[in-house]
C-alpha cells in the first residue's frame, strides 16, 4: 500500500508525528516545505532519510518523527470528513467478522476511509474490498486517497446509495460491514451479496439503541442467526425473551467504550510507624496544652485576687492617681490577648512549678524511637505503585456493534439414503413455532 523502501523518497506519503495529539500526513514533494509549531523543514532534506527517523528542524525550534504509514497511524492522522472508527472498534469488528488474507468484504459507507485502509491491509492482494459511499465529494476524496496509497488493486469504490440500489456483487463476499443511519434497509441486499456455501458474517454499527432493536429484528427476519459460537452480553429487549444460552446463540450486540486513563505513580504510602509517631506527638502536645490551661486558670485566679486587693487599697488613696499609675501595667488586662496571657501565665507557672509536666517527658523518647524505626524502614527500597484510573466523566461510547451470522446450507451431494440430504429433517422443538423450517 505504502512504500516499503528503507528511506523516504519524493512522492511518498509519510506520517509526521509531532506530539501524541498532533499527527499529520505529509506528501513529500521536491521543493516542498513543512512549517509548524515544531519547526521548519524542507522536504528536499527529508528525502533519503530512513523511515522512523527523528529529525531536528533547521531553525532549532523543535523536532518531529517521520514514520512509515500503517493503517493505525493513518487513522490517527487522516483528515476527517466524517466521524471515523478507531483502533478498538476496527480491530474487534475485523476479528469478529473473520476478515483475513483472501477475504472478500463489503463496507458501506466509506466515510473517511479509516476502516477501509485497515481492511485493505488485512485482506492483502488476494482479497478484495468493495466500498460504497453515497456522498459524491467524499467518494471522490476517498478514491483519491486509495489511489495515492496504492490500494486500487484491492479496493473498489462505488459512488452509490446501497439502501436504495443494493450492492454490485452477488454470492461473493465473506463479510459485510454496515455503518449507515438505516442499516435495516441494506440487510436484504447484503444477503444477496454474501456467499451461500460458507458461514458468512455481518456487522451493523449504530450509535442508538433504537437502531439496534430495528436492526436485530430485520436480521432475524432475514434468517441471520447468532454467532454459532458464544453468547455475548445479550440485550434485554421489551417484548422479547431475555434468553441466555441457546444451541445456536442469538444475534449479539456489543458496546465499545473508549476511555482515556490517567496513569500516575502515587507517592509511597505512609507507614504505620510514622502515622503512629505523628499521633503520639499530637497526644503530647494536647496534654501539654491542657496542663498549661489549668496552670493559667490557677494563675489567673491568683492575679485577679491580687488585683482586687490592690484596687481596694488604691481606692482609699484617691481615683485619678491610681488610674494613671495602673493604666500602663495592669489596666490593659482585658486587652491582653489570650495567647499572650497564656504565655505570661506559663512563665509564671514555670517559676512556681519548675518540674516539667510528666506526660511531656515520656513522648520525646518515644518519638525518637519511632523516628529511628521509621528510618530503618525507609532504608529498604520503597515499592513503586503505578495506578491507572479511567476518567470518571468520560463514558466513551462510540457505538453499538450488532453481529450476526448467515449459515450455509449443509453440503449436499451425499450418497442416497444419507440422513444429511439437505431437504430432509427439520425438527420442531417449540410447541408454538411460527417460523418452522428454513
Amino acid at each position, binding site marked *: 500500500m505504502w512504500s516499503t523502501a528503507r528511506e523516504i523518497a519524493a512522492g511518498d506519503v509519510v506520517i509526521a508525528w509531532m506530539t501524541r495529539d498532533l499527527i499529520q500526513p505529509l506528501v513529500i514533494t521536491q521543493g516542498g516545505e513543512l512549517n509548524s509549531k515544531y519547526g521548519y523543514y524542507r522536504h528536499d532534506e527529508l528525502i533519503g532519510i530512513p523511515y522512523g527517523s527523528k529529525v531536528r528542524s533547521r531553525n532549532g525550534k523543535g523536532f518531529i518523527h517521520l514514520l512509515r504509514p500503517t493503517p*493505525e497511524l493513518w487513522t490517527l492522522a487522516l483528515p476527517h470528513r466524517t466521524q471515523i472508527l478507531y483502533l478498538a472498534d476496527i480491530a474487534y469488528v475485523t476479528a469478529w467478522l473473520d476478515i483475513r488474507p483472501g477475504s472478500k468484504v463489503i463496507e458501506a459507507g466509506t466515510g473517511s476511509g479509516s476502516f477501509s485502509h485497515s481492511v485493505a491491509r488485512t485482506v492483502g*492482494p488476494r482479497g478484495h474490498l468493495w466500498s460504497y459511499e453515497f456522498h459524491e465529494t467524499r467518494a471522490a476524496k476517498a478514491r483519491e486517497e486509495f489511489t495515492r496509497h496504492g490500494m486500487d488493486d484491492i479496493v473498489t469504490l462505488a459512488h452509490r446509495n446501497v439502501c436504495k440500489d443494493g450492492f*454490485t456483487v452477488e454470492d461473493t463476499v465473506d463479510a459485510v460491514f454496515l455503518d449507515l443511519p438505516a442499516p435495516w434497509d441494506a440487510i436484504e441486499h447484503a444477503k444477496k451479496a454474501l456467499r451461500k456455501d*460458507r458461514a458468512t458474517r455481518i456487522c451493523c454499527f449504530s450509535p442508538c439503541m433504537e437502531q439496534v432493536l430495528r436492526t436485530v429484528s430485520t436480521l432475524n427476519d432475514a434468517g441471520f442467526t447468532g454467532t454459532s459460537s*458464544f453468547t455475548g452480553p445479550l440485550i434485554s429487549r421489551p*417484548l422479547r*425473551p431475555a434468553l441466555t444460552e441457546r444451541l445456536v446463540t442469538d444475534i449479539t450486540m456489543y458496546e465499545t467504550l473508549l476511555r482515556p486513563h490517567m496513569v500516575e505513580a502515587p507517592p509511597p504510602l505512609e507507614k504505620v510507624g510514622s502515622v503512629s509517631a505523628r499521633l503520639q506527638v499530637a497526644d503530647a502536645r494536647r496534654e501539654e496544652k491542657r496542663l498549661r490551661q489549668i496552670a493559667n486558670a490557677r494563675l489567673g485566679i491568683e492575679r485577679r485576687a491580687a488585683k482586687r486587693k490592690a484596687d481596694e487599697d488604691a481606692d482609699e488613696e484617691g481615683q485619678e492617681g491610681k488610674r494613671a499609675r495602673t493604666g500602663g501595667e495592669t489596666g490593659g488586662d482585658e486587652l491582653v490577648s489570650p495567647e499572650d496571657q497564656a504565655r505570661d501565665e506559663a512563665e509564671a507557672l514555670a517559676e512556681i512549678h519548675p518540674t516539667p509536666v510528666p506526660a511531656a517527658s515520656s513522648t520525646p523518647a518515644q518519638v525518637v524511637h519511632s523516628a529511628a524505626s521509621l528510618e530503618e524502614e525507609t532504608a529498604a527500597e520503597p515499592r513503586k505503585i503505578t495506578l491507572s484510573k479511567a476518567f470518571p466523566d468520560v463514558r466513551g461510547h462510540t457505538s453499538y456493534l450488532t453481529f450476526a451470522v448467515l449459515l450455509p446450507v449443509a453440503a449436499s451431494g451425499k450418497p442416497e439414503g444419507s440422513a444429511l440430504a439437505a431437504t430432509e429433517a427439520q*425438527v*420442531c*422443538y417449540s410447541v408454538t413455532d411460527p417460523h418452522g423450517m428454513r
Partner: protein
Amino acid sequence: MDVGEGPSRAQHAPSITREDIIKAGHTLLIKIPSGDIRSIKLEKDATVHLGKFGSFHGNELVGQPFGLSYEIVDKKLKVLPPRPMQEVEETEATNELINDEQAVQPLRPDEIETLKKSGLHASEIIQKQIEQHATFALKTEYSKEKYKKRKEMKYSKHFTVIEPTLFNVCQYWFNKDQNRLRDIRPDSLAQIVNLANIRPGGRYIAVDDASGVVVSAILDRMGGEGRLVTICDIDSPPAYPVMVQMNFRKEAVAPIMVSLNWAAADEDYTPIIASSEPPAGKFKSDGQRTRLNKRKIASDALLQTREELFNGEFEGYATSPRIEAVF
C-alpha cells in the same frame, strides 16, 4: 461512477490458511446442549463420543462446512436448520397461585428413562413433561421458555460445530484457561495483530508465552506468505497448543515459521553443535549415515535461521513474554 467489479456467482478460491470444510484429522470445537464446548479430534473412520449426548460416525462430518448444528440419530447426523429468535407474547401470569410444596411433575425418573429408551424424540419427552406438569399453564411466558430450555439441555441430542476462526479459538481458550493465555482476550488479540501491522508477506519476530495464541493470530493474518521467527525459552521446538484448534493448512505454516531459543538468538553465543562428520573418516553403516545427515540438516537450519535473524529487516515484533524480552 464505478460499476463494481466482482462476478456474480464467483468462483470461490479456497481459503489460504485454513480449510473451508471439515476434514479428517481436524480438531473440532463442538458445542453440546449444556453449553459447554469440547475439543474433539476427528479421526478417519472413527466414532465420535459425546458422552450422554450420544455418539456418531465421524465421517458424517467430513465435507461439511463449519458452523452448522446437527442431531444425532442412530449414529448418523441430521442437519438442524438455524432457529430464529422467537417473539414471546407477554401475559398477565404471575406466581400468585403456584405452590412449591407439592411435587408438580408426576413423571418419575425411571418413567422418563423408559420413554428415552423407547426412542421417543427429546421434544416429545419434553412435551409429555409439560402436559403432566401441574402448574405449567400458570407460568409466565418467560418462565415457560426457561423450563423448555432447561429440559432441552438435558434431553436433546444435538451439537454445533464451531468455526475455528481466530476469534472463536481465542474465546474458547480464554474461557477454558485464561491463565495459559496470559489473559489475552479476543479483543486484545485483535488489537495486537492490527497494531503490529501483520499483513500477508510481512516479516515478523514473535515471543509467545501464551500457549501460541499470538503466533496463531500472526499466522492467520499472514495468509501463508512472509516469514515468522519465533523465539522461545525452551530447548526443544515450542508447542503452541492453540494452533491445534486453528486447523491451519500445513502449507500456510511450515514454509513460513521457524523457531529459535533465546540462547541461539544471541549473536554473541555460538550454539554447541555436534559434528555431523563420521569420527572414523567414513560411515560405519547406513544407519549412521542417515543419522549424521539428519544432524547436518538440523544444524544447518539452525545456523541459517540465526543468520536470518541477525540480518534483520523485520518489520514487526509481537510479544507476550514471561521474561523481560528486550532486544
